[in-house]
């Protein structure tokens, strides 16, 4: 009888020890997860600040490109206007000398008609 109880006690102790070891491993993992989660939560504001800085840099770059394109467009528009004025002068001069200038290209006719 005593031997059986002793054996049972030993088996119980081993099982309890195994449970404690397993529980310790699980608790260790839970602690590591919690520590990682805390680190991520702490790093989040810094990450957001970094994201914001990146967005601002991208926006500034695009704004610069847009300004450049607008300046170029303005320059081209003034060039076309000045060229159109010059062509008008030439046409007037040719007609004054009895020369009929060639018909304007289709694109120009279309622009005169539609405005675009």
């Amino acid at each position, binding site marked *: *009888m005593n031997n059986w109880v002793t054996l*049972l006690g030993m088996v119980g*102790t081993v099982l309890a020890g195994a449970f*404690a*070891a397993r529980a*310790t*491993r*699980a*608790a260790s993992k*839970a602690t590591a997860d919690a520590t990682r989660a805390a680190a991520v939560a702490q790093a989040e504001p810094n990450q957001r600040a970094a994201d914001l800085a990146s967005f601002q840099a991208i926006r500034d770059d695009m704004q610069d490109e847009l300004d450049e394109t607008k300046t170029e467009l303005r320059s081209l528009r003034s060039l076309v206007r000045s060229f159109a004025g010059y062509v008008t002068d030439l046409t007037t001069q040719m007609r004054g000398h009895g020369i009929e200038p060639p018909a304007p290209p289709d694109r120009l006719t279309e622009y005169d008609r539609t405005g675009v």
Partner: protein
Amino acid sequence: MPCRAARWLHRTLGRRGEFLLIIGIGKTCWGVSFLVDPPSTAGLQLLTQWCSLRHWAWLWIACGLITFGSALLRIGRDRYGFIAALIPPAVWATAYTSAALSGEYSRGGFVAIWYCTSHVGVILWAATVPEHSVPPAPRRARKGKAPS
């Protein structure tokens, strides 16, 4: 100053370390009490048939010191502290169960249950406690019909 020392101790030991420290001291003292003035051996015949309680006292002292020492270890490495803490109460519970079953000590069954719950059970529970934990993710609302 005592507050700062307590904070330092709390920070150094953590939740699990504090528990191991407390029960380590307790078990060691319990073992020392057997050396100083051995109590009645009623219900412990399973143990005293091998050697006296003065010798068995060293089981409590050794396990108590291992438990105490494990308090300073990091989580994961402290498992031996919990295992060491389990051994003496499990041995005592076995002895009292044996005494109760053989009819030598009728109170033994209750003492064995006390050892299994208030000692072994508490230690097993404490082994599952992490140092820090994150709360579980909130449950999503169940889909269903809205009350009319």
